[in-house]
């Protein structure tokens, strides 16, 4: 997409993510052609939508779509996708004969579908197991962020109504695609926290001046921008080199830096930011859950570090 096209697309997406969420946002995405745009300019489509979802605090089935298309799981609109449980990134299912062991999460859109597909390991192979949604015993997640609309699958065994089908795509690619999208959503979430904290710092007067005049406050906000730009740079690197390892780094950095942003912004917003009368809390909550999806900063980083210790070899630096 070129400059003008991109600008128009961004405007439409900004309007859609700000005015709708859940099923309504999904309908709007179909209408404005996000799924087609994804085929034409994957990076711009993912970065814009997920960044804006993060900024607005809205949700859609776009993450399900990315996971489904990367793995080549049946992507009928009427089929939901099972996501790994919090802080996990292996395929959410294991198939033994005609039995599926599954644990994980389902989005609000997925929970509405009559069937869901589960990426599962069967020996060394990756298969797609499709099961009736009602067989999973879905339970709406209240948790720290009920507005995200996730549903929990309590770990269970399900009888497969049909033979699972082989999957052509790779789970590694699905994880990388999901992580890049979630990293961008975390950055968007952080940007809103910074916007809210900045507005408060300029409005709130103490000792006869806006608290934005105090260096202790200014430096927290400056550190928040540094945190956001750090995550953006890492996401940029992941798109540039296309390596799943770099996407993992981007997700870890974005998760960690969103926590940094939440810490600083919550402190600047002080009392009012600790109430439900101000919007900040929704973004603090959202950042916590997004950090956990497809691996938290801590888990991804520990696994990465352990690999480095084992191989004693750093990945190559991003070339100029």
């Amino acid at each position, binding site marked *: 997409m070129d400059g003008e096209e991109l600008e128009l697309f961004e405007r439409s997406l900004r309007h859609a993510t700000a005015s709708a969420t859940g099923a309504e946002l999904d309908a709007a995405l179909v209408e404005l052609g996000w799924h087609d745009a994804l085929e034409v300019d994957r990076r711009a489509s993912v970065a814009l939508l997920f960044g804006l979802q993060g900024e607005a605090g809205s949700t859609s089935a776009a993450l399900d779509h990315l996971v489904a298309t990367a793995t080549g799981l049946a992507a009928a609109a009427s089929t939901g996708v099972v996501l790994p449980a919090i802080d996990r990134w292996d395929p959410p299912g294991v198939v033994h004969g005609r039995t599926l062991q599954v644990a994980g999460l389902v989005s609000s859109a997925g929970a509405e579908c009559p069937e869901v597909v589960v990426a599962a390991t069967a020996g060394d192979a990756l298969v797609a197991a499709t099961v009736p949604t009602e067989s999973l015993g879905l339970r709406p997640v209240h948790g720290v962020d009920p507005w995200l609309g996730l549903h929990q699958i309590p770990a269970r065994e399900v009888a497969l109504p049909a033979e699972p089908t082989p999957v052509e795509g790779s789970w590694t690619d699905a994880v990388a695609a999901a992580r890049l999208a979630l990293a961008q959503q975390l950055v968007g979430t952080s940007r809103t926290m910074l916007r809210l904290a900045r507005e408060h*710092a300029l409005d709130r007067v103490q000792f006869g001046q806006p608290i934005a005049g105090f260096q202790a406050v200014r*430096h927290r906000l400056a550190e928040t921008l540094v945190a956001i730009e750090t995550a953006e740079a890492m996401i*940029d690197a992941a798109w540039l080199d296309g390596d799943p390892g770099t996407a993992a780094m981007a997700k870890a950095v974005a998760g960690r830096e969103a926590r940094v942003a939440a810490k600083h912004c919550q402190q600047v917003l002080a009392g009012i930011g600790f109430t439900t009368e101000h919007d900040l809390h929704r973004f603090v909550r959202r950042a916590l859950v997004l950090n956990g999806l497809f691996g938290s900063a801590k888990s991804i980083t520990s696994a990465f570090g352990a690999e480095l210790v084992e191989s004693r070899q750093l990945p190559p630096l991003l070339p100029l």
Partner: protein
Amino acid sequence: MDIDEYRAAFDAWLDDNREQLAPAYEGKGTLDEQMAQIAKVKRLAFDADFGRWGWPERVGGLGGSTLFRAYLQEAVTARDLVEPGLFSMQEVLAPTMIDFAAPELAATMVARLLRGDETWCQGFSEPGTGSNLGSLSCRSVRDGDTWRVTGQKVWTSLAQYAQRCVLLTRSGTPESAHRGITALFLDMDSPGITVRPIETMHGSLEFSEVFFDDVVVPAERMLGAEGQGWSVAMDLLPYERSTALWQRAAFLHSRLQRLLEVAPPGSLDPLKLGEVTQTLYAFRARSRGTQHRMASGAPLGSETSIDKVLLATAEQAVFDLVADTLPAEVTVGDDVESHLWRTEYLYSRAASIYGGSSEIQRNIIARRLLDLGSDR
């Protein structure tokens, strides 16, 4: 020539001339040895044209993308041919000369710096003027066709080696603040200049105090117009905070790789190692973006303060990990490699101070990037 062609050609040249380019010393070398090595590498690279690409033709360059310069810096650093911080000083001073010196002056002088025939220094900070650059007081008085300079500078890197100095002086009244500053390009062998090197914590005489006692500078050595010195400084600082630091990611990458190779089993905390590596890669990604913006012709400004904060964070994170992983080497080791780890650890402490402290960078971010208004 595009960047891939440059990269391939330069890498081949570095391989072919490996013996000639190699330093004559083991480990870090003395400052004299480092400076001689830098001059040698610059001369060889310049004479083979690689040191000329990316610089304008009017100052002896061969034109082309500034990415060529970035790759040269990175490649000589990754191969451990030069001390990266000292080598990259031309990335701070040459662009300023090109932008502000009279064309004939720039044409004569810049090539000497690029070829390693000369070393230049940067006279900005003073005993009473650190973070508050606008308060500088080193006095310059116009006297016919000359300026007469009296005062003192400090933290002037490589002053004892330098043939020239880019100097900020107070030409206006003491109250004129940033409006009354004039930049001069002076010869360091002018009568009246005294250089007193200061030993740093990491054992180097890298910077000095410089005293000026009625030093005469010809008027054509002015950079920009009289009273325009603040613009010169504002033009220079973004380079010092970003593109001149580009090679440090390559340096830190090679040191972290070495740490992985020598760390005793069980000494590296995987979570910490993973985090440090991610921080370094994020700095690299940020820095790469800045290089590409400069290559596209975009002016560099306040956003480079983020690059500088990230460099300081990454460099200190890498060497904190070194200190935690190799405690004996860093504290009581007296072999060549231990000395190197210790020296680099100590030098990393300066990363959040030089080129504008991390606090000053945050002030700039708050004021210019977040538009929080004045803090005074």
